[in-house]
């Protein structure tokens, strides 16, 4: 049956149906596949997670008991979870601003280039495309306490003027070089570094796309209006024009940062770093819900995770509607 047939068949079969009800019915039929898919793969699983977060259910058990808010109480009181929030927020608050800032800087630099644009673009985008597991192995080698390039390079500075100029290096020349991934003082920062290294190329590509939409004549208008420095030009033309891109880039970076899992799993297949110093939310969900089969607590962390992501998305929507679109 084609759409054109609809009114005619309705007229003959059911004279009671008016064109309006018919149209409404057709609308439901047409939206049904999307609605069903959304319910099955999104709404139902989320509701199940919310329900399970109030229980002590384990996979394979015949039944479960309601525990009320006990799971959430654990999340807010136990020190392991306090460490989880600390690691997660450290990662988000370090990685998001730096990867966005570096992405913007790299995009501006590449945009100002005449030649070799594509070469630089490819180089900075490589970490985004590369498999993280392979990259994690490469980083593990580089950060190896004794044979890694990082510590060897640092050790080469011992006994030279660099040591006198840099107290931190002097300390480690005496005590031995840091263990990096094995030291709970450094572990989360190393993870942050890898996260920035891996993520800023993606932001750069988004900013490069945003830069192409900046109207060239605006730069000429700014010049005629007496704008002399590059910084003023950036403030008057480039940065406002990149507003929509920035909101998108920050949101995407935040959500990706909250979703950090694979780097931790690759570096620390057992546990989550020295002294659980890299025990981020995603890893906690995996550990509790899958490894230890504590579905209740795992669901509670999941719900909290969804709340954070939802908050970021709502802030983004608000910004997009109120601030950065100049229509």
């Amino acid at each position, binding site marked *: 049956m084609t759409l054109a047939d609809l009114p005619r068949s309705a007229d003959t079969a059911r004279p009671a149906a008016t064109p309006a009800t018919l149209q409404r019915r057709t609308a439901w039929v047409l939206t049904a596949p999307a609605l069903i898919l959304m319910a099955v793969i999104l709404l139902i699983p989320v509701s199940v997670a919310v329900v399970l977060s109030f229980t002590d259910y384990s996979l394979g058990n015949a039944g479960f008991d309601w525990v009320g808010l006990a799971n959430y109480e654990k999340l807010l009181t136990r020190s392991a979870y306090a460490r989880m929030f600390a690691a997660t927020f450290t990662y988000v608050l370090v990685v998001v601003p730096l990867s966005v800032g570096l992405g913007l800087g790299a995009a501006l630099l590449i945009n100002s280039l005449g030649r070799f644009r594509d070469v630089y673009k490819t180089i900075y985008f490589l970490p985004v495309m590369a498999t993280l597991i392979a990259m994690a192995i490469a980083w593990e080698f580089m950060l190896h306490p004794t044979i890694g390039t990082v510590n060897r390079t640092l050790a080469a500075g011992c006994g030279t003027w660099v040591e006198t100029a840099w107290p931190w290096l002097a300390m480690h020349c005496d005590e031995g070089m840091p263990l990096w991934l094995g030291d709970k003082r450094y572990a989360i920062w190393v993870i942050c570094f890898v996260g920035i290294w891996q993520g800023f190329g993606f932001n750069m590509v988004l900013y490069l796309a945003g830069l192409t939409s900046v*109207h060239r*004549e*605006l730069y*000429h*208008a*700014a*010049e*005629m*209006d*007496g*704008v*002399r420095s590059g910084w*003023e030009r950036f403030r*008057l*033309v480039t940065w*406002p*024009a990149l*507003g929509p891109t920035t909101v998108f880039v920050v949101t995407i970076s935040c959500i990706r940062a909250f979703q950090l899992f694979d780097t931790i799993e690759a570096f620390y297949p057992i546990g989550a770093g020295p002294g659980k110093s890299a025990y981020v939310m995603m890893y906690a969900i995996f550990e509790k819900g899958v490894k230890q089969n504590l579905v209740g607590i795992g669901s509670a962390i999941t719900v909290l995770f969804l709340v954070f992501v939802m908050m970021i998305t709502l802030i983004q929507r608000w910004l997009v509607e109120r601030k950065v679109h*100049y*229509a």
Partner: protein
Amino acid sequence: MSGLQIDTITKSFGATEVLKGVSLEIGAGEFVSLVGPSGCGKSTLLRIVAGLEQATAGDIRIGGRSVAGIRAADRNLSMVFQSYALYPHLSVADNIAVPLRMRQLGGWHRLPLIGGLMPGARDRRAAIRQAVAAAADTLEISALLDRKPGQLSGGQRQRVALGRALVREPAAFLLDEPLSNLDAKLRVQTRAEIAQLHRRLGTTFVYVTHDQVEAMTMSDRIAVMMDGRILQCASPDIVYNDPDDIRVAEFIGSPKINLLPAESDGAGRLSVFGHGLPLHGPAPNQVLQVGIRPERLIVGDADAPIAGHVAHLENLGSELFAQVRIAGFNHPVTLRAEPEMAPALHLGARIGLGFDPAHLLVFDAGGKRVRRLSPQAAPRRKETV
């Protein structure tokens, strides 16, 4: 307010030369239009004057002082762009204030929050607000000052762009096709307003357009540009009635001038379609072209020496344009007539075409105007050929 001298400017993009030694002298307070078809280099010339583009060779002087090596921001010129180029995130008031803020406030004064606390900030900001209000008043956009450019119509945006240009007192205004994004009605209205603005400010205006009507109606002088050269620069009246070049004659005037093939015989006497004219050219046996404006053609008898059939009619109410096909000539000849002539000029009607030989513009084979004509045979006698 200063004059502008453009001195043998050439500009090449790679191997293509877009400006081939353009010279133009613009007096202080003059309104000069650069007009020509798209791609003739007029916008490039304007951008070179502005300093947004570097000339390959030649010199620009503003108020007698060479501006070679002086960047656009320091040339004290204002420019209105075709796209208006308003800052989308700033309100109308802030848009107009930008040129003043950039020139009158130091870097510290422009910072948000801290800027307001700097010594003297209050007075300077009040002065800028006053100047913005005055500019808005001039252009009758005071009610729009709080809006963003996105909330304005095309005509209003255009006014804001003008306001941003006139809020300070520049040496000259440069306008790059400022009316091309407006609808026809608004264009006519804004045209008159820009001309009035020029009279009121008395500043030098350089106006780039591809629309010869805009150029004709607003300018003190028109510079007709084609293929990277200025073909003629003169008052609208002279450019229209006394063009130097066949391309100028063709470009200026709507509908287009009629061009008819002509030749001179052994004695130098001109003839059109084989009919002798009471005019003598400078040399014998030449192939020439004569141009005659549609309004100079007179409807004659059907048995006149030059006659044809009406092929198309356009009645504009106040005037009537008829396209007449002449046997053995490919292009229709356009004729302007009073609307009262309509009954005689119905489609297919056979009419004769007459003209006063004094109204003929004669061009040589290369398109250059031939002015040395001697009306020996019939001095100034009105004659229907």
